[in-house]
């Protein structure tokens, strides 16, 4: 149980003060911790009389606490966002529901990844080190699918051209998906290079495949790349354009 918001209330009796507090918090007695700060005193003819004072603290389960913190954080961005909470074992899945979530997700999930990181930081500050996943309308699942398809498509290109391909920097989870998608392939291999947060996945052709496409040392007699017609250039040179691999409809 984690302590949530606490309020103090006064009343003619302990009972009365407690009821008032419960009403304000909108909970029931079994979900709070009650401290009696001052017992009421009758006094004489209204002299020296004292009201009862209690402090009522909400007790939240881990799940409730995570959900509430996330709701508060997201509420600052947009009041209309709704949250769906699914506790798993040892991890937490939070799905934001609403319309026009593109703004919350950001380019390639940039915004939602940052929000997730902030949420985790806030929770860690309260002593909650649970794996928390923040999602928006099932974006993570869709992204997973896109990445898998991209991995397969790029692997095909690497095999065909016998040239390695370097992805733009991606977060660990996304790199993992690329590795997983290609782990059973024998024609290409994957590894990552660079330091977080700029680590990139590289897909390489495996040595054993026949290397008749590309001489390892370019012949000095071969025409320089400048002289190649544009369609030839396009088919041999990996694009420097970041995120080209994510372009749709290819």
């Amino acid at each position: 149980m984690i302590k949530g918001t606490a309020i103090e209330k006064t009343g003619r009796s302990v009972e009365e003060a407690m009821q008032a507090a419960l009403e304000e918090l909108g909970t029931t007695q079994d979900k709070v911790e009650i401290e009696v700060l001052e017992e009421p005193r009758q006094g004489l003819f209204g002299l020296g009389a004292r009201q009862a004072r209690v402090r009522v603290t909400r007790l939240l389960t881990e799940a409730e606490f995570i959900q509430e913190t996330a709701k508060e954080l997201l509420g600052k961005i947009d009041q209309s966002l709704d949250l769906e909470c699914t506790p798993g074992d040892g991890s937490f899945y939070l799905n934001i529901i609403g319309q026009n979530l593109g703004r919350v997700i950001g380019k390639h999930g940039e915004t939602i990844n940052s929000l997730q990181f902030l949420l985790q930081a806030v929770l860690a500050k309260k002593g909650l080190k649970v794996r928390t996943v923040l999602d928006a309308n099932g974006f993570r699942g869709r992204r997973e699918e896109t990445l898998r398809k991209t991995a397969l498509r790029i692997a095909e290109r690497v095999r065909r051209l016998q040239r390695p391909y370097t992805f733009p920097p991606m977060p660990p989870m996304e790199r993992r998906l690329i590795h997983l998608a290609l782990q059973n392939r024998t024609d290409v291999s994957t590894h990552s290079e660079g330091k977080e947060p700029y680590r990139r996945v590289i897909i390489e052709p495996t040595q054993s495949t026949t290397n008749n496409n590309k001489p390892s040392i370019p012949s000095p007699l071969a025409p320089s790349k400048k002289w190649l017609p544009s369609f030839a250039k396009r088919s041999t040179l990996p694009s420097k354009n970041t995120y080209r691999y994510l372009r749709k409809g290819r």
Partner: protein
Amino acid sequence: MRSFLEFAVKSLVDHPEEVEISERETAEAIEVTIKVSKEDLGKVIGKNGRVIKAIRTVVRNIYGSSKKRILISVA
């Protein structure tokens, strides 16, 4: 933007009562300064600036416009 920053920063630091957020608007940018107590500087910035980077990303993508940049500094 202010309430988001305030909530995020206050729930990260040890002395939330010392958090102050000020905004200054110039012709081409909105300059936001987050003031926290000295011990809390590291908490708002994070390891390798990861926390402040996340804060900047969220603020830029959600509250930013194409007209004005938002500059966030921690002091």
